[in-house]
């Protein structure tokens, strides 16, 4: 055990929060230590902090306090953050088209509504040269290509295959392994399923839970149901692919059924990860009757389903709550890196779903055959990490949500947005409640959703930062 002075220093320098749940007192440090204690212990720690005095306190009690505050050392930066300073991406996220084989009621890109654009593969080739050269220079072991974007990557199947072959050829040329990931709606036949299973390293399959949700929220362009096709794709991947998972958008239409969705998916596809994301208001959702989920229902259903899924070994996740981040200056997503996302029109964006033009920071110049980037915009994007979010600095949950989706954060702070529109946007209380639930689970305290919801609101009022 440390000396009295060292313990006092720890009490004064550790950032910790007191959370109250029902009649229980919990101390939570930003190093992830969580302790269950009584009110007297809370008052004593506060008294020590305020008076900078530990005289007369028994060594055994000081030892317990020290244990409650000690936690693993946090790293202040990571390799990716160092690389970020250099603007040297070794991964490209590519949007091959804005066309789509579905007409999802909440599509962030309103895919299929505009005149169709396909990416010029010469531009993709240039992007590949950039990531492979950077990886070589940085001595990285792998490069990554991720298909995502404003439409369905497999919509133009010949273009998709050509792009995969091109990327694999570059990998051979540079002598560096390449990992390829596809996020897809799964609307295709067995030829496409077989090709993806053989040639793509990992796959995210978007599905909306049960057939009634999928057919209502993710119809085909002619309005017909899409369930049979997507569930056939899921079954094919289950048999033939090792690394894939489900992504479910949660709206007011399916939030009440989350636990049933989890029951169905985990019993039909044991071990496959399931990710839930509440709908973000943008794109087509602004013109349809689909709304974001009620947070209290989301929390209740999510926690209920998560426990059930554990029996089948299906990891269930939601991006707003993760294990404690290792880096203080981390960000919710690669937007603050910024991401190297190549749009179908040749522009470079940090986020495909962002409504704000601020996320576009470069474009392809046909004359010079080069990408031109706006350094000022890059600088601004880098301030989107949790470290620079003022309102997050006194929140116990900030290293679990990492400031949450910057696009959602920015939208929810706009004053010109109606309350109805904001529903499902301001996710702070939702995230805090789920973090609190995870803390309670770690302490093996039974959970009551209504009390957790209250906890999400009050927990930040009782904080003592270091």
């Amino acid at each position: 055990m440390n000396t009295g002075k060292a313990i006092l220093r720890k009490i004064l320098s550790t950032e910790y929060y007191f959370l109250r749940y029902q009649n229980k007192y919990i101390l939570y440090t930003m190093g992830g230590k969580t302790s269950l204690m009584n009110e007297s212990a809370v008052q004593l720690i506060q008294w020590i902090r305020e008076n900078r005095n530990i005289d007369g306190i028994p060594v055994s009690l000081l030892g317990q306090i020290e244990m409650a505050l000690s936690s693993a050392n946090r790293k202040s930066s990571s390799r990716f953050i160092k690389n970020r300073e250099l603007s040297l991406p070794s991964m490209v996220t590519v949007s091959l088209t804005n066309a789509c084989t579905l007409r999802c009621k909440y599509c962030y890109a309103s895919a299929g509504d505009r005149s169709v654009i396909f990416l010029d593969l010469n531009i993709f080739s240039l992007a590949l040269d950039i990531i492979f050269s950077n990886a070589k220079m940085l001595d990285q072991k792998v490069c990554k290509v991720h298909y995502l974007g404003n439409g369905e990557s497999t919509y133009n199947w010949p273009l998709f295959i050509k792009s995969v072959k091109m990327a694999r050829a570059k990998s051979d040329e540079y002598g560096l392994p390449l990992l390829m990931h596809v996020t897809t709606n799964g609307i295709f036949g067995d030829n496409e399923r077989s090709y993806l299973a053989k040639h793509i390293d990992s796959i995210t399959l978007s599905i909306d839970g049960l057939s009634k949700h999928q057919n209502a929220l993710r119809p085909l362009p002619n309005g017909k149901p899409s369930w049979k096709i997507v569930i056939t794709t899921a079954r094919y991947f289950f048999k033939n692919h090792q690394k894939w998972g489900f992504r479910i958008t949660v709206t007011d239409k399916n939030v009440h059924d989350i636990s049933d969705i989890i029951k169905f998916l985990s019993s039909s596809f044991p071990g496959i990860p399931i990710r839930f994301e509440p709908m973000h208001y943008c794109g087509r959702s602004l013109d349809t009757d689909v709304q974001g989920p009620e947070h209290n229902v989301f929390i209740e259903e999510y926690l209920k389903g998560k426990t059930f899924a554990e029996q089948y070994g299906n990891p269930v996740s939601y991006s707003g709550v993760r294990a404690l981040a290792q880096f203080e200056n981390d960000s919710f997503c690669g937007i603050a890196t910024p991401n190297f996302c190549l749009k179908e029109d040749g522009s470079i964006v940090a986020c495909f779903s962002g409504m704000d033009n601020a996320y576009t920071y470069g474009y392809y110049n046909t004359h010079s055959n080069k990408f031109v980037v706006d350094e000022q915009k890059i600088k601004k994007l880098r301030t989107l990490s949790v470290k620079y979010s003022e309102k997050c600095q006194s929140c116990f949950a900030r290293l679990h949500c990492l400031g949450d989706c910057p696009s959602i954060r920015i939208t929810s702070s706009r004053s010109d947005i109606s309350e109805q529109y904001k529903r499902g946007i301001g996710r702070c209380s939702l995230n805090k409640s789920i973090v609190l639930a995870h803390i309670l689970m770690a302490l093996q305290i039974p959970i009551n959703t209504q009390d957790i919801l209250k906890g999400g609101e009050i927990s930040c009022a009782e904080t003592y930062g270091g």
Partner: protein
Amino acid sequence: MRRDIRWLIKQARIFYVVQMPMGNDMPEMCEQCYCWAECKGW
């Protein structure tokens, strides 16, 4: 030492302490879009 603090010392109980998991709990997921690519964008 004040009487009320002495009383606090006598009553204070820390029942148990747990370390929450740290790092990426979904190791194969990418924080860029939270998919499976484990890349953090770059």
